[in-house]
Each structure stands twice: as structure tokens, then as C-alpha cells.
């Protein structure tokens, strides 16, 4: 008769149960899929009226392109956006987390978020994890103190620059910026320069490709230009197209509007300083 063991409550943390099996499978040649990385070319520059951020749209898992049109420019605050390179999960998670923290901070203080706040939150988090959170970010925005552009490295160091590039395509994009950037660019010129830099990355770096996304942030206004340039459109599309013969029948449509239980009063005077 087997002795009954005490039922322990399930512990949290990583379960190592399948590690032996994975090792055995790897020896036989069945390797697990590698992490989804955004090979990437991300750039930012400061122009006359604010900040322009740009990114390509290719996500890779090893040598396979797993997403041809992913979004690398993440929302942080109405006036702050952040481009992310490195492990896609890490960039998504860290920007999402800081986005929530900034929103709570806005409720607490009653003021517009500042770029240095986002910067400090991101850099402290990344430093705490000593580079294991593989997120390399280009953070840009316009707040009461003016336009700001920062780069944040996975180990937690930051730089403040007038123009910046990150990712595997950063060298190609930086070459474009170094030869053509000057202070006081107009919005047109800035957008063209950012597109050129991203295209340099798209065409010369294997980890970057597909389309160009842009985000133009100025005082009190932002433009998120998704797929601003599509230099790699699908050229050969079957003329037959797609048809789905069996459609699901809609039997009944009923819409119930929810009652407003809370009356939201617009906040009074927002403090400037």
C-alpha cells in the first residue's frame, strides 16, 4: 500500500516538468520555435514643431517573418509614443505597463504626462531586470517643457538626442540621418527624412522590411500614420480572390443600450505647472 502524501498547495513559478522531455526532443531535431523578435529599424527625430517617430513593420521568429505588418509604435500617453525593438513580447509588455502607470499618474496629478516621467519609469524597470527584459526603445513626445526624444537600452541606460535610431537596421538609418539631418526641419522635410531612414533599414537589413509607420507629435496634436509608405506591397494576388461559400445565418439581432449610471463632469482648470 502506498503511503499517502500530504497535498501541498500548488506553488507559483516556472514548472520544470517538461524540461527533460524538451531536451530529448531537441536531441532528436525537433527544436522549439524561437522567440518572436522585431529585427527592426526604429528612428526618431526632433523637428521645428515637435517629434517624428518612424518604424518598419516586420516581425521575425528566427529566420521566418512571422508578421509582415506589425505595429511597433506604441501608445504611451496622448502626447507620448514609443517605438520598440528587441523581443516583441518584452517591448509590448513594458510599454503597456508604463502606459497604465502613466495613466494612473495623470489621474493622481491632474496634469498632462511628461516624457521624462515615462523615461524614468522605463529605465528603472529595465535596470531592475539587468538587461534580461530585451527591449530597446525610442521614446518621443511633446509636453509642457517642449519636444523630447530619448533612446533606452535593455540594460537601463538612456540617451537624449536630437535624432536617434535603434534596432538591427539602426546603422543603415543612422547613415541617412548623419548625412541629411539639420536643426529646424519643417514637418514635410522631417517626414521625408524619417521615411528615407526607415527605407534604408528596410532594404539593407534582413531583420527589417515591409512598410513604414510614422507618428508625428506636436504641441497639442498627434498624427499616427499607419502604413504611411508601402514600398513592399503584395504584387501577385490571385485574380480569383477569396470566397467563403458557407455563411453563418443571422437569426436574431437585439441591441440593448446600457444606462449611464455615472455622470462625468469635465475637470475644472487644469494646472499648468
Amino acid at each position, binding site marked *: 500500500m502506498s503511503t499517502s502524501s500530504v497535498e501541498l498547495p500548488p506553488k507559483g513559478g516556472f514548472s520544470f516538468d517538461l524540461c527533460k522531455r524538451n531536451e530529448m526532443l531537441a536531441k532528436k531535431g525537433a527544436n522549439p520555435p524561437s522567440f518572436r523578435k522585431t529585427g527592426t529599424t526604429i528612428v526618431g527625430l526632433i523637428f521645428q514643431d515637435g517629434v517624428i517617430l518612424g518604424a518598419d513593420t516586420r516581425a521575425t521568429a528566427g529566420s521566418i517573418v512571422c508578421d509582415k505588418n506589425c505595429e511597433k509604435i506604441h501608445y504611451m500617453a496622448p502626447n507620448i509614443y514609443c517605438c520598440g525593438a528587441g523581443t516583441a513580447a518584452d517591448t509590448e509588455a513594458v510599454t503597456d505597463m508604463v502606459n497604465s502607470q502613466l495613466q494612473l499618474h495623470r489621474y493622481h496629478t491632474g496634469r498632462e504626462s511628461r516624457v521624462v516621467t515615462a523615461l524614468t519609469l522605463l*529605465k528603472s524597470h*529595465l*535596470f531592475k531586470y*539587468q*538587461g534580461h527584459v530585451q527591449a530597446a526603445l525610442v521614446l518621443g513626445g511633446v509636453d509642457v517643457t517642449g519636444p523630447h526624444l530619448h*533612446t533606452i*537600452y*535593455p*540594460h*537601463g*541606460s*538612456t*540617451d537624449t*538626442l536630437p535624432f536617434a535610431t535603434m534596432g*538591427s537596421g*539602426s*546603422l543603415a538609418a543612422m547613415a541617412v540621418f548623419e548625412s541629411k539631418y539639420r536643426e529646424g526641419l519643417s514637418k514635410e522635410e522631417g517626414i521625408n527624412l524619417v521615411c528615407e531612414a526607415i527605407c534604408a533599414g528596410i532594404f539593407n537589413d534582413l531583420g527589417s522590411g515591409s512598410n513604414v509607420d510614422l507618428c508625428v507629435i506636436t504641441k497639442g496634436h498627434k498624427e499616427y500614420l499607419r502604413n504611411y509608405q508601402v514600398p513592399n506591397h503584395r504584387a501577385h494576388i490571385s485574380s480569383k480572390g477569396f470566397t467563403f461559400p458557407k455563411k453563418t445565418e443571422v437569426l436574431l439581432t437585439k441591441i440593448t443600450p446600457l444606462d449611464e449610471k455615472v455622470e462625468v463632469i469635465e475637470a475644472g482648470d487644469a494646472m499648468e505647472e
Partner: protein
Amino acid sequence: MDLDMSINAPHSMGTTIIGVTYNGGVVLGADSRTSTGMYVANRASDKITQLTDNVYVCRSGSAADSQIVSDYVRYFLHQHTIQLGQPATVKVAANLIRLISYNNKNMLETGLIVGGWDKYEGGKIYGIPLGGTLIEQPFAIGGSGSSYLYGFFDQEWKEGMTKDEAEKLVVKAVSLAIARDGASGGVVRTVIINSEGVTRNFYPGDKLPLWHEELEPQNSLLDILNAPEPMNT
């Protein structure tokens, strides 16, 4: 050749940092290159960071570690100043840096030079290399480029220099180190701290003196590509 030096290497500051006392204050100087492996991540970084109105620190080693250490010390010094009711002394700032560096020596990789002016001791320079030793010196050098400057300082250093002599010495030394050290480059930044306040100066790379076998910057032939078309009759 270390082929693993890719652009994903941790951000380190190759660096040349210098702190020098003179008759009446201190002069801090640094280059401006931050490298990740073999790529220059920032060619115009500012390695001389403010801790208080009268105390600055030159950072070298890991960029992340040195930024975090100086952020913590700036915060502690701010609290200390409020509690004390007067500006913090350079000795206190240096000791706070030393406490963090020494107590976390296994996890940090950063060499710092603290310099400033206070009314009790005047201008003082404290070197805090890897490991967290605190050493008060008339002049201190640090970073990878400092290896090339030990002999230079042994010969050129004098007690009781004037402000201009001290600044010229610092700029000359940083430019010599830049000429020989691959991990140092860009521009030379100096900060002069004395009883009157703080002055920041900037020396762009093309204004620095050229040394043995260094060439004059040449105009690139690419410039003629943008030249206007010659006129036709």
C-alpha cells in the same frame, strides 16, 4: 578579435574622464563617446552629470550603472540638503557615491570622479574607481583613455594653477587620450566649479589640436555631388 561585440552589447562608455583642482576650484573634463560593442551609440553624450548646484560627477564604465548610481545620489543629496539647511559638501557627495559603489560592488561596473566646491574645503576632487575605494586627490583620471595619460599628468601637473591653465590642461589631456584610445572620441566637455558658480564649456572635435600623425579633416568628394550645375553659355 572578439566577434561577439555586436550592437546588442551593453552600453558602455569607453571614456576618458578627468578631474583637476586649481587655485580656487575644480575643472572636470570628459570626452563624449558611448559605445555598444564596436558601434558608437551616442557620439555627443554628456558624461559630466550634476549632483547638486556645486557638485558634479564624471561617469565611466557601464552607462546604465553610472546613470542609476548618480540618480540615487542626486536624490539622497537633495534630501540631505533639505535636512542640513545648507548646500551639501563635496565630501558628503563623494561618500554617498562610495557607499553605493562599495556595497553593490558585485553588481556594479562603474568608475566615477566627483568634483565640486564648498565653503569649508574649497575645490576638491575625489576618485571612486571600480570596487568602491574613496580617494581624495589633487587630480584624478579615469576610463579606458586614462591609461595614456598617467605619464602626461606626472609631467604636466602643477600645484596652484590658474583657472585657464587648468582648463587648457584638461582639454589637452582629453584630446591626447581621444587620439590614442579607440573607445574615446567626439567632443570635449568641461565643467568649471568655483565659489562664483558653474561654467560649462564645449570643444567640438574639429577645434581640438592635432597630434602626431593625425591628419587634417578633408572635405569629402561627396560634397561636389551637391554642387550646383556649372553654367552653360
